[in-house]
């Protein structure tokens, strides 16, 4: 097997190794499935409840996507605003940093008061947790524009807007895609956390109800499903990133 090929499958090999090790520990020490279920048991429970899990997973998925979509729109607009204006940067950035330091799970009870139990709090929690990296990356991409490049265009009578559209935006695309990969995983965290206390549907809700019914296998199956969805979306954005901003990743092509 050639080295690049081996690199590609390496994470699968590691995953399989961990699962085998896990199974071995559980079988060897005969650990109770109510404490720590074995992979085989998790898989059995997964098959047993697959329609239930699929329904909850679908709910978590689209709610996350809604929150994430909102995060992209708001993150890009805010990032554009604070990246293109020094005044906006000075005014907004410190406040945004303070806001980002707040634990987003703490917002859930407030959101429940405002929007009730259901999709409202989940979408908004996913949004609140994931827009920040998008905003910061767009702003950084725009704010670090080389002054010579700007002069080349300004000499031609280019307006600030021209410079932003022709240079600033394309230049910040690699930063943008990098931030999407971080943001999508955060969005899943936001949705799941919110569903744990403020929903009757979704993987978060499934985790809590399975836990309280001592169905540990089902709870773990739910965790695996969230992890798998986040990883799939991450890979999707990686592919899009490679195909749209290959110029920024040329080092790895040689």
């Amino acid at each position, binding site marked *: 097997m050639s080295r690049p090929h081996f690199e590609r499958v390496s994470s699968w090999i590691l995953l399989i190794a961990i699962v085998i090790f896990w199974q071995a520990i559980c079988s060897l020490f005969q650990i109770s499935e109510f404490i720590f279920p074995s992979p085989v048991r998790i898989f059995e429970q997964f098959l047993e409840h697959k329609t239930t899990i699929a329904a909850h997973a679908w709910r978590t998925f689209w709610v996350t996507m809604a929150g994430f979509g909102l995060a992209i729109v708001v993150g890009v607009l805010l990032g554009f605003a604070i990246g293109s204006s020094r005044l906006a940067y000075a005014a907004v950035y410190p406040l945004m940093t303070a806001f980002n330091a707040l634990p987003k799970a703490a917002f859930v009870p407030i959101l429940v008061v405002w929007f009730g139990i259901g999709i409202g709090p989940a979408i908004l929690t996913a949004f609140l947790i994931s827009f920040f990296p998008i905003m910061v990356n767009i702003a950084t991409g725009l704010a670090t524009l080389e002054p010579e490049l700007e*002069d080349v*265009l300004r*000499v031609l*009578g280019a307006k600030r807007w021209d410079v932003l559209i*022709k240079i600033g935006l394309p*230049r910040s695309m690699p930063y943008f895609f990098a931030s999407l990969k971080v943001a999508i995983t955060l969005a899943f965290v936001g949705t799941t956390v919110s569903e744990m206390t403020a929903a009757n549907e979704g993987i978060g809700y499934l985790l809590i109800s399975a836990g309280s019914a001592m169905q540990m296998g089902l709870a773990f199956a739910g965790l695996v499903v969230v992890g798998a969805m986040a990883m799939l979306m991450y890979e999707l954005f990686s592919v899009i990133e490679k195909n749209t901003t290959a*110029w920024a990743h040329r080092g790895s092509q040689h």
Partner: protein
Amino acid sequence: MNEAFLSFQNVWLAYSPQLLAQGQFAVEAIDLEVKQGEFIAIVGPSGCGKSTFMKLATGLKPPSKGRIMVDGQAVKGPLKISGMAFQAPSLLPWRRTIDNVLLPLEIVEPHRSRFRQEKERYEGKALALLDAVGLKAYAHKYPWQLSGGMQQRVSICRALIHEPKMLLLDEPFGALDAFTREDLWCILRDLWTDQRFNVILVTHDLRESVFLADTVYVMRQSPGRFVAKRSIDLPRPRDLDMTYSAHFTELVHELRTQIGAVRTVSPA
């Protein structure tokens, strides 16, 4: 045609009102007359205000005192008739070579509004320009697939695509090795001979200035001020062999002496 194309009349520039109040000028008392189609070079030590001079000439910075006229009109803002190239090629890595060259046409009128309809014609023009600097085969490559010297040639093409009346070069060959640099001197000489735009070349390479320019100005630092003007009476067309002639060496030596004299002047 006696009318000067570019003239500076007692131009002073301070970068901020505070500096102006303290009488700290980046450049002072600049007087300059450039004829239509003249190639001038400005030489001097680093930090002597050469780049400031460029900003003034292109209208990116208004002068604090004095008057700058281009083509018989006072300069009030970016001129749109000039093209610029710097020491760093600063090409856009996501655009192919040809699209980098075309960039100014997407900005400057009247090309801007015609760009979509007449894209093919403009592309032909860009290809002809790339051909002139020996890069036609690289038109559809990305900048990072080109060597440093090639990138600098592309950068000069980009500065020329909209047929500027004035080309401003800020140490454009400073980062290149000696052989590539001499190649590019010849390329620039040929482009200029062909199209006769005005060139303002800022450099600290005296041989470069003597080889290319009609007139060389020597600048002093802090504050920036012209201290000498030397017409280069070498016949054209000039070739690289000429740089080994006695008269060429004499001119370079004379300018070097001027710079040396500048350096011994203690800052006021």
